[in-house]
């Protein structure tokens, strides 16, 4: 029976009872309990079932290494699966349910796998479900998936908030045990900025459990003096409930602070992910006790000796009335003594070593505890709970010498230093024969930016397992008894959570697995949520033995962050909901929202796609907007257009290098369309350039292209032509820009009043400064629609007001706003290309028939050499033409133009593809542009496009200008 002791429990507050529930059953614990401690206090020893065989599993550990006792925590929007009971602080109203069983924890159908376990060896799935192949997808996988998985995935959005924070320090100490506290103090003494993180809610580590002395003082007294000392210092920050999850390059450490796990719903962030930059990490993370491999070592009631001692001393909980201790080292005797001191029965300590003569064994004997050396456990008896152990000689094959009745077993197979943080960035390990463990090799540390050691390891994490500094000796005991037959070995668990046994690793070795990394993946050893904290060393020792090799030669698997699981919420931090990512809004955004705009993303911008009216589909809205723009006047929010000022004595020369055309000769007051290519020659951006004054140009870029092009300009100015006198400034967001487009455009602007926008005063491809309706404006007479069109820039702070003024004045001229889809249709009707539609990073301007925009005279421009490459200069390239379907339909987006025959892969040959395809409300038929092999020489030919449904659609090749070929409409 596991129960609460009448007294004791250094971490609990007996005057503060806490109610919680497990599988719906109401239970009581105390403030300060871990959930595991509280469950044990309520005699809930069995808390889950294993992953593969569904065997009953109990609490094994008392810390983050716990493999078994995982629960679903909370409900609804606060449900979290796979929460470790050992690191979950008890709080009032906590609701936990056990995992991986059906229909109930004590009666589980899946346990059939347990009885069939000898038919489910390592690699079972790989071997069994290979054939017939189609069965995998339709039969095997769905069944396996239903049976797999531990916790329940939440179905609701997370109700909690999370955040991240940056911190900087000279020394980050991980672990507030004695070694960590001492390291923090000495760094603080040296005047360094120190952050000390501790995964539990309290400082002190394991030392207070063992009632040791530190520096000649009782540990509790030493501890409170140290806590007071550190708390008083300005240069020390202590964060409890904070796990250093990973160490990364240049002293970057991620640490997960469980701010409000124990106070859910109090409004504080549930977790806070610290992004710490430190000059040095001191790893004082301690050591983790290892299980021993004996048959039945997974039966509820078998626990790590240190954990069992934690429950007795820290929480006043007795996991069993009679506990057999089994060990290969002295530390487990502490547990025997602690149990005895708590008035509990320890029928025997089974010590696998031939003799045990240290101070602790002697103290145990003196306390009247029977010590049986040279012996171990042949088999643990019991099903859902330990009922006794069979004793055998460690040297033999498991002949039972004695049966001992008990309800708990405390085991210790030695201790493994927690080297994770040392190893994350490549710190190397040595195998230490004295303590049978991997320890950090201080001569091969992970390196910092200056080549110095980034991580230092102190205390038990460095292999110093004895506070007094005396070297501890822990002889290896990997299998108990050492000659155990298969019948016993197939019940010796290495990885409790993933159900990997000694026999599985041995089988893998027999089947030819030599590498520890492969064996891990084949057997799934160490691949569960605990990442093998208990199992890895035992597993690779078994592998080494099976291969007739030594442990250091076999080596460890790679230690990767995070040390313990970090919830996705913490990694996302503030990036959720409205601030998941920055959405860029123009000054007129709110007006568009009020007008019922349907938005689409353009880069990070949100632009109106169309402005649907009541009862209208988006398609109908687009057609209305296009027709109105062609017949009356349309208003477009063009604020997202990139605007970059380029100024200086060498600005003209610079722009001539940047654009394929010539910009240096552009007269002041005029505009010119330009193309920019990358050095490979591929078209990268386009836009209208305006000459502002003698040494100033304003370059318009595509929406969303402004930052990229500005960066591109600065790259060349800073890194290649740094002696050229040119400055740039990205003023994209300084101006709101409104395009007033259509036959009534001039009339609308004239009604606003303030400047002359007549054909004579402001001809096509010119700009002018002035005022309209009292707003300071710069008006560009440019057109992306083929209509009479003005693009008007106003300071962004007046953008919304100017838009409103245009809308109001526009009523008299039947003005309507139009969106990006209307813009696309209008430009496609005129055969204007769109970066990202006609281009995809493999298209040169010559492919698009834009040779007229490429200077033949210039010796050089960015991309010129690239375009000279034979492949790009080939006459066989796909080139831009227009298409009209014979039946008037719209060619599907993404269609290819099929050619005869098939390629080497048996796919239909192609000779081109569509790049833009729309229904033209102006022409009342489908129109398209696309790239076609030898396109411009094939006018009038009929080609076939594939369609999504299968079959093809026939279209006639034609020029790209579908509407107003002579440009009469824009030139008025």
């Amino acid at each position, binding site marked *: 029976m596991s129960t609460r002791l009448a007294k004791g429990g250094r971490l609990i507050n007996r005057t503060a009872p806490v109610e919680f529930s497990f599988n719906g059953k109401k239970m009581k614990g105390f403030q300060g309990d871990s959930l595991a401690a509280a469950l044990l206090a309520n005699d809930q020893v069995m808390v889950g079932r294993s992953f593969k065989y569904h065997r009953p599993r109990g609490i094994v550990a008392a810390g983050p290494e716990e493999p078994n006792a995982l629960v679903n925590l909370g409900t609804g929007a606060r449900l979290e699966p796979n929460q470790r009971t050992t690191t979950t602080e008890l709080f009032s109203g906590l609701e936990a349910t056990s995992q991986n069983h059906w229909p109930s924890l004590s009666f589980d159908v899946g346990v059939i796998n347990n009885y069939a376990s000898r038919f489910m060896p390592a690699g079972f799935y790989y071997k069994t479900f290979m054939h017939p192949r189609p069965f995998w997808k339709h039969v095997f996988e769905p069944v396996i998936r239903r049976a797999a998985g531990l916790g329940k995935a939440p179905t609701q959005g997370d109700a909690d908030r999370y955040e991240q924070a940056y911190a900087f320090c000279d020394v980050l100490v991980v672990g507030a045990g004695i070694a960590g506290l001492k390291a923090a103090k000495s760094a603080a003494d040296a005047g360094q900025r120190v952050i000390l993180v501790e995964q539990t809610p309290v400082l002190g580590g394991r030392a207070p459990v063992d009632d040791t002395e530190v520096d000649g003082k009782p540990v509790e007294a030493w501890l409170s003096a140290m806590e007071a000392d550190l708390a008083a210092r300005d240069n020390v920050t202590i964060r409890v409930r904070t796990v250093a999850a990973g160490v*990364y*390059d*240049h*002293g*970057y450490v991620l640490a997960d602070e469980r701010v409000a796990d124990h106070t859910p719903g109090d409004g504080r962030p549930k977790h806070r992910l610290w992004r710490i*930059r430190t000059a040095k990490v001191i790893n004082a993370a301690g050591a983790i006790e290892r299980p021993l491999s004996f048959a039945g070592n997974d039966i509820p009631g078998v626990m790590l000796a240190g954990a069992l001692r934690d429950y007795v001393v820290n929480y006043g909980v007795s996991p069993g009335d009679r506990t057999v201790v089994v060990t290969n080292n002295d530390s487990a005797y502490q547990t025997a003594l602690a149990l005895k001191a708590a008035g509990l029965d320890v029928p025997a300590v089974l010590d696998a070593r031939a003799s045990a003569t240290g101070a602790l064994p002697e103290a145990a004997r003196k306390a009247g505890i029977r010590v049986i050396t040279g012996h171990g456990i042949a088999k643990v008896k019991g099903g859902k709970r330990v009922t006794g152990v069979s004793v055998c000689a460690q040297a033999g094959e498991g002949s039972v010498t004695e049966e001992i009745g008990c309800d708990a077993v405390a085991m210790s197979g030695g201790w493994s230093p927690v080297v994770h943080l040392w190893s994350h960035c490549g710190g190397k390990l040595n195998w230490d024969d004295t303590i049978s463990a991997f320890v950090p090799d201080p001569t091969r540390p992970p*390196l*910092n*930016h*200056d*080549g110095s050691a980034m991580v230092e390891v102190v205390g038990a994490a460095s292999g110093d397992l004895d506070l007094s500094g005396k070297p501890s000796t822990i002889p290896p005991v990997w299998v108990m008894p050492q000659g155990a037959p298969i019948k016993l070995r197939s019940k010796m668990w290495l990885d409790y959570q993933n159900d990997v046994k000694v026999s599985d690793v041995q089988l893998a070795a027999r089947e030819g697995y030599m590498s520890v990394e492969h064996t891990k993946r084949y057997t799934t050893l160490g691949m569960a949520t605990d990442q093998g904290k208990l199992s890895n060393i035992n597993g690779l020792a078994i592998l080494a033995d099976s291969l007739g090799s030594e442990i250091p030669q076999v080596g460890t698997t790679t230690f990767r962050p995070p040390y313990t699981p970090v919830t996705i919420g913490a990694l996302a931090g503030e990036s959720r909901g409205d601030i998941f990512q920055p959405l860029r809004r123009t000054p007129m955004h709110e007006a568009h929202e009020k007008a019922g705009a349907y938005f689409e993303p353009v880069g990070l911008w949100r632009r109106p796609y169309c402005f649907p009216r009541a009862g209208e589909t988006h398609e109908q809205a687009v057609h209305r907007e296009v027709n109105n723009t062609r017949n009356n006047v349309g208003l477009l929010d063009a604020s997202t257009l990139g605007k970059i000022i380029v100024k200086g004595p060498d600005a003209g020369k610079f722009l001539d290098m940047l654009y394929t055309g010539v910009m240096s000769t552009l007269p002041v007051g005029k505009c010119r369309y330009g193309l920019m290519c990358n*050095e*490979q020659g591929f078209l990268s951006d386009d836009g209208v350039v305006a000459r502002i004054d003698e040494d100033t140009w304003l370059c318009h870029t595509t929406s969303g292209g402004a930052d990229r092009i500005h*960066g591109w300009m*600065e*790259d060349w100015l*800073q*890194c*290649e032509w*740094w002696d050229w006198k040119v400055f740039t400034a990205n003023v994209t967001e300084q101006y709101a820009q409104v395009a007033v487009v259509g036959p009534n455009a001039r009339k609308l602007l004239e009604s606003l009043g303030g400047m002359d926008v007549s054909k004579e005063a402001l001809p096509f491809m010119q700009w002018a400064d002035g005022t309209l309706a009292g707003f300071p404006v710069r008006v560009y007479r440019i057109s992306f629609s083929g209509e009479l069109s003005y693009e008007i820039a106003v300071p962004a702070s007046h953008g919304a007001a100017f838009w409103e003024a245009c809308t109001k004045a526009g009523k008299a001229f039947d003005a309507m706003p139009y969106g990006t889809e209307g813009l696309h249709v209008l430009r496609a009707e005129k055969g204007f290309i769109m970066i990202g539609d006609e281009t995809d990073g493999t298209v040169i301007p010559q492919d698009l028939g834009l040779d007229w925009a490429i200077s033949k005279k210039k*010796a*050089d421009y960015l991309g*010129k*050499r*690239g375009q*000279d*490459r034979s492949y790009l200069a080939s006459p066989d390239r796909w080139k831009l033409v227009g298409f009209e379907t014979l039946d008037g339909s719209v060619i599907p987006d993404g269609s290819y133009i099929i050619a005869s025959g098939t390629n080497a892969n048996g796919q239909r040959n192609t000779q081109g593809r569509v790049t833009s395809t729309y229904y033209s409300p102006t022409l009342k038929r489908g129109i398209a542009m696309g790239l076609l092999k030898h396109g411009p020489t094939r006018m009038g030919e009929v080609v076939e496009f594939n369609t999504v449904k299968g079959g093809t659609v026939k279209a006639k090749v034609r020029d790209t200008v579908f509407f107003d070929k002579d440009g009469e409409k824009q030139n008025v």
Partner: protein
Amino acid sequence: MLTLECPYCGVKADETELAPGYEAHLKRFGPGSSPEEFEAYMFARKNPKGVHFERWRHAYGCGKWFLAARCTATLEVFGTYPAQVSEPPADIIKKIQARRPEWKSGWQPDGKGTK
């Protein structure tokens, strides 16, 4: 997550404040260059395990491009310097030689630049 000191503004910038620009000290080959020269300029990139020269832009900062010499294996940074040079400064070379006596390779695509 590297930290690199921007030589222009002196900020010890976090990698998230920087934009990478790949290999440094490339020589541009424009019109008239041979296919081999253009290929070397456009495509041939060293991928050394060890000393490497890179371009970085202090994108979330002063906006300037700078160059960095670092070891791709240990991530040791030998130094950062302004981009307006065609070869690494002498003090950076000296520092690399002190830290990596065996270092021989140059910083140009054709291996030239060995000191």
